C-alpha cells in the first residue's frame, strides 16, 4: 500500500465505560486493514474509577506508542468533561467525536464543584469538525446499553475509508462469542445513523 502518515487517535473516558475494549477493536481493524499499529494505556490503580485514556496510532510504520503533544488527529471521548482535559494535545483543525454522556466526578458528587453544563456548545463554537453522538441511545436501540462503546466505535468508523466487513471481523475477533451479535448490531446501527 502507499506510504501513509501515522494517524493519531486519543481515546478518553471514565473507568468502566469500555474505552480500552473500544481501542482494541479499532487497533485490530487497522491491523486487518494492513497498517502498522501501536496502542498504549495504563492499568492498575490508574484505572480504578478515574480518568482513562488510551492512544491508538496507525500508519505505514509506527515507532512510538505515545502521541506527541500537539499531534492528536482525532479525540474520541466517551464523556463530556473528559473531552476537556486533552484539548491542549490536539493538532490544528482536529476531529472531535464526543459521546453525549455526563459522569459526575467525586468533587461534584461531594458538592464541592459544579459539572460544567455548556461543554457541547463550547466545543461546537471552537471546532468545525466536532461531532456529538448519543451512543447510549444507539446501544439501547440495539438491545443493551452496555454496547455503548462498540456503538461509539461505529460512529468513529465513518471517518476512515475501511470496509465495514473489516470492522465487523475485528469485533468478532475481540469480543466473546456470545456478545458478538449484539455488538455488531450496535456498530452497524451507529455507522448507518450518524
Amino acid at each position, binding site marked *: 500500500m502507499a506510504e501513509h502518515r501515522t494517524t493519531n487517535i486519543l481515546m478518553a473516558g471514565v473507568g468502566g465505560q469500555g474505552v480500552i475494549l473500544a481501542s482494541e477493536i479499532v487497533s*485490530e481493524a487497522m*491491523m486487518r486493514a494492513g497498517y502498522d499499529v*501501536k496502542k498504549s494505556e495504563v492499568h492498575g490503580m490508574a484505572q480504578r474509577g478515574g480518568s482513562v485514556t488510551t492512544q491508538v496510532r496507525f500508519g505505514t510504520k509506527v515507532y512510538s*506508542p*505515545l502521541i506527541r503533544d500537539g499531534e492528536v488527529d482525532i479525540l474520541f471521548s466517551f464523556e463530556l*468533561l473528559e473531552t476537556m482535559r486533552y*484539548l491542549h494535545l490536539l493538532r490544528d483543525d482536529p476531529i472531535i467525536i464526543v459521546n453525549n454522556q455526563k459522569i*459526575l466526578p467525586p468533587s461534584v458528587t461531594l458538592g464541592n464543584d459544579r459539572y460544567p453544563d455548556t461543554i457541547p456548545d*463550547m466545543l461546537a463554537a471552537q471546532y468545525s469538525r466536532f461531532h456529538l453522538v448519543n451512543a447510549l441511545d444507539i446501544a439501547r436501540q440495539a438491545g443493551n446499553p452496555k454496547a455503548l462503546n462498540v456503538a461509539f466505535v461505529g460512529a468513529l468508523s465513518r471517518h476512515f475509508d475501511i470496509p465495514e466487513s473489516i470492522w465487523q471481523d475485528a469485533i468478532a475477533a475481540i469480543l466473546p462469542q456470545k456478545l458478538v451479535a449484539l455488538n455488531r448490531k450496535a456498530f452497524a446501527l451507529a455507522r448507518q445513523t450518524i
Partner: protein
Amino acid sequence: MKFLLSGNEAIARGAYEAGVRVAAAYPGTPSTEILESLVQYQDIYAEWSVNEKVALEVALGAAIAGARALACMKHVGVNVAADPLLTASYTGIKAGLVIVTADDPEMHSSQNEQDNRQYARFAKVPMLEPADSQEAKDFVKLAFELSEQFDTPVFLRSTTRISHAKSIVELSDPEHREPLHTLEHHFEKYVMLPRNARMRHPLVEERLKRLAAFADECDYNEIILQETDIGIIASGTCYQYARESFPQKSFLKLSLVYPLPVKKIKEFAARVKKLYVFEELDPFYEEQIRALGIPVTGKEVFPVCGEFSPTTARIAITGSKPKKNAPALLETLPLRPPNMCPGCPHRSIFYVLKQMKVFVSGDIGCYTLGGLPPLSAMDTCICMGASVSGAMGIDKGIDKALAPDNLGKAVAVIGDSTFLHSGMTGLLDIAYNRGACTVIILDNRTTAMTGRQEHPGTGFTLRGQPTKQVDLKALCKALGIDHVRVIHPYDLEQVKSTLQEEINRQEASVIISQAPCVLHRREFKPLGGPLNIDDNACIGCKACLQIGCPALEWHPEGNRGKARINSDLCTGCTVCAQICKKDAIRREG
C-alpha cells in the same frame, strides 16, 4: 500469523516458544498479565507465588532441576526477590532462568519509580530491554539462550509502555526441547557456603567480561548510521520516542543494556558530532559512558523524574516546544481521581478510622485509596507488608504519656493478599515482641487492585484449580495473637464497636474484616439492589457523602441542596443508610 499483542502477552508467548516449563510470579502492575496470558499454554506449570522472593526461588529451583523457568514481577517486586537474586548470580543455573522486571516510570500504579537496570549491575547479571512487543517475544527466547550459554540468570526489563502497549507480533512454533529432568549433586556450584561462594565470585567476574565481549559482537546492539550531526543512544520505548522525533539522525539502539557494548559505543561516538543519551530515570548509560572518557549530553537536558514521551525528546534536543492548541474554554476542570468502587467493603473501615482519629499504618492495594478525601484515613504507605511491622515500630517508638487520645495506639490496615505476601512476618514480630498494635486485615477474598488474582486465602490456584485455603483467623492465632475477631464491614455498628474495643486494648489484636470484593466473580452476592433517598426526609446535612461513595451525588438545587443516589451505581450495601440520622435512605420499592 500476525497478532496484536501487548508486551506482556508477547513475553508469555516468548516463554512458550522457548519451551518454558515452570513460571512463577506475584501480581503487580505492570507485570500481572504475563502469567495470566501464560495459562493458555496448558503444558507449562504456572503459579501465583506468595511473594516475589518465593517466585524467584521456585523458578531458580526449577532451573537447577533442568527446566527452563520464568519469574515475573513489577520493579519493586525485585526488591523482595533481591536476596535470592544476588546469590543466584553466583550459583548460576542448569536450564535457563529468566527474570522479568516490569518497571513503572511515572508511577502510574506504584509507590516509587526505581530504575531496575541498576539491579543488573548490582547482581552482575545481563539484562535485555525490548522496544516493542515483537522484541519482547524474541528477547525472551534470546534471554534463555544467554542464560544457558553463560550459566547465569538473565533479566528481561520491561516498562509500562512496553508491557501495556500493543503492537504487531509474528508468532513462531515452540521449540522442541529434550527434557533435562535429572537432578545432579553439585556441591561447589549450588551450596553457597563461604568457601564455595569465594570460588564462584571470580567466575561471576569472568562471566561479566565474556558478556561484555558478547555485547559488542551481537547484532542486538545496533548502530543505525544516518545524518551524523546528532547521534542518540537509547533503548526500549525511549528509542522509539527518539526515532519518531528524529527519523533521519543516527542511533545506537541498545538491546542488551547490561553489560554495555564498549567498543560499539566508542565507534558510534567517533562517528557523530554531538552524542545524546536518551534514557528514562537514572543516568545509567550516561555515567558508564562518561567513565569511558566520552563526552555525552544526558541528564543536563533530559529529566530524571517521570516517564519520557516523543515530546520530551523533541523539546530537549531542538528546544522547540509543541504549540498549544488549547482554547481557554474552562479555567479549571473538576479532577477525576481513582476511587473505591460503589459498595466496596473497605469503605466503612476507613470511615470509622477517620472518625476515631487514630494513626493508620497503611499498605499497598485498592485500600490505599482510603487515604484520599473524603475518607482521608491513612498516614503511611511504604511497601508491601510495611503496615504491620511499621505499626510495631510506632507502638515502641511513641511516647504514650504525651500522645493524645487514640494517637497512642498504632493501627495497621492491610489487605488479605498483601498480608499473606509479607504481613505475616510482621505480625509474628508483634506477637513475639509483645507489641500492643491492632492489625485490621481487609479480607476481600482476592488480590483486587491488580485485577482479582487468586492467592493462598482464596482456595483456588492461578489455573482455577481448587486447593488448600489458609484460615486467616487460625493463622493469626498460631502466630501468637490471642485476640482475633472477624467482622462484617457492612455492619457499621459492629465495625465501630469492634474497632473501639480493640484499639483500647493494651495488647496485640487482629480484626479480620471479611466481605468479597464487589467485582469478585465467584464470591460476590448482590447486596439487595439500589437504595433511594427520600427527598422530603433528607435535610442536606451531607453526612452520607463523607464515605465518598461514587453512587452518592450532591444536588445543590433548592434551599439547602439534597443528596441523591445514582441507582445505576448503587449496590445496596447500606453503609450510607446506617450513617443517615434522618433515616432518609431506604431500599427502593
